[in-house]
């Protein structure tokens, strides 16, 4: 392989934030992203918003997937968005939220800059396609 050849890979952070301890979904997503050829950083459980920001900035991910099943999305997501803005990382990071989000809140989250909200029953392919089609140009 020549040194001049570009080899871009889509990098994702799969993040579990707040107090909810259910990470089966996050594991399944991480695995599906891996099998789609993405590089996936998994945060581990019970992360605070600023830890997620730190990880997203340092890892320079294209995609930040936040899994929240606790219902605290309206508190946690804005903190993450603000943190990303502080480091100049908001503009070119695709933010996704997965979990149980009421319809009204979906719009609020999208208004903050979340690109899409994926609820229960979303197929893996749908999520992967969405990432492929919307990953920010850099």
């Amino acid at each position, binding site marked *: 392989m*020549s040194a001049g050849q570009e080899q871009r*890979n889509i990098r994702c952070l799969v993040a579990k934030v707040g107090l909810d301890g259910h990470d089966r979904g996050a594991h399944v997503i991480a695995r599906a992203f*891996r*099998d789609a050829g993405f*590089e996936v950083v*998994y945060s581990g459980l019970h992360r*605070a918003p600023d830890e997620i920001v730190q*990880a997203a900035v340092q*890892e*320079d991910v294209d995609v930040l997937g936040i899994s929240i099943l606790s219902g605290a999305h309206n508190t946690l997501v804005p903190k993450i968005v603000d943190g990303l803005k502080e480091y100049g990382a908001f503009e070119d990071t695709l933010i996704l939220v997965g979990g149980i989000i009421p319809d009204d809140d979906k719009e609020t989250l999208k208004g903050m800059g979340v690109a899409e909200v994926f609820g229960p029953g979303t197929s893996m392919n749908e999520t992967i396609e969405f990432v492929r089609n919307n990953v920010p140009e850099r």
Partner: protein
Amino acid sequence: MSRADTADLVDELLAGEHRALARVITKIENRSPGYRDLVSRLHAHTGGAEVIGVTGSPGAGKSTLVDKLAKTYRDAGLTVGVIAVDPSSPYTGGAVLGDRIRMASNVGDMDVFFRSMSARGQLGGLSTATADAIKALDAFGKDRIIVETVGAGQNEIDVVRTADTVAVLVQPGSGDDVQMLKAGILEIGDVFVVNKADMEGASRTVAELEEMIHLREDGTNVDAGHHGPDVLDDVAPAETRDAGSEEAWTPRVVETVATSGEGVDDLVGAFDDHYDYLESTGALEEKARTRYAEEIRQLLRSDAASLLEEELDRRGGMDELVSSVLDRETDPYTVADDVIRPLADCVRDRRD
């Protein structure tokens, strides 16, 4: 990426912006257009960091130990960069990079810059971009840079080319004394870490490692004779790396329990001793010289290879040449001579 963008990015990195450092590493990793210019500009600002490599089998506790090491350095007022490499899938190229999960002691501390990297198909325990990513962290001003390899088997030894000090983690009860006779990873340790030292069999593993080290010390005068094809000519084994100097480094064995942090201070002490040794004997400069020589050679090889690929394409591609070889119209040596001759002539003409 334009030259102006490159200059801006480098300025931002040197000014201490985390986002710029992260972006530079991404560009290095992706071999993005302009990354070479980027790394060239960083070079003048490097040379200030001590680079520590941590390797060992999967599950030996590398990530947990790296977390505690970073914490210990931070407590001593030093800034830390970590590069943790995990394997990539041979089928899809994808990867799950899980080392970050263990970084519990440095949460919210931006002066620990932790970056996960996929090996992207490389088999030596690091990725092609790791060495350049270390330069980015070095230029950023990190005092200590810890490189954690892919969970290693017996022969993933690229880290020895990259780090000043190599720590090899060994689990208690990971084999009998014959394992200790084997070549490969056990030859590259400057410090051996028996992690999970609270487990049964730890003291025996320590004893076996010490025996191995002493056997080696006695045996270093034996001339190995001519080398096989793939030996590391550029890097000698830990204890003979500077046979010219009056004192050689005797690898140390340190016991740790990474989960509780026990023994980590001793380990940092052993790293410091090794670094002092490298500095005082001139081995540090010697290592840097070999590393740059190897880097230049590698760049030349790959640039020359791309130039030759271009030339092959111009001649109608490899397939056509292979067909004429298959049909016995020509042979591989003649083809190689034909392709390289104009290049060689051109180079010789330009000499003066």
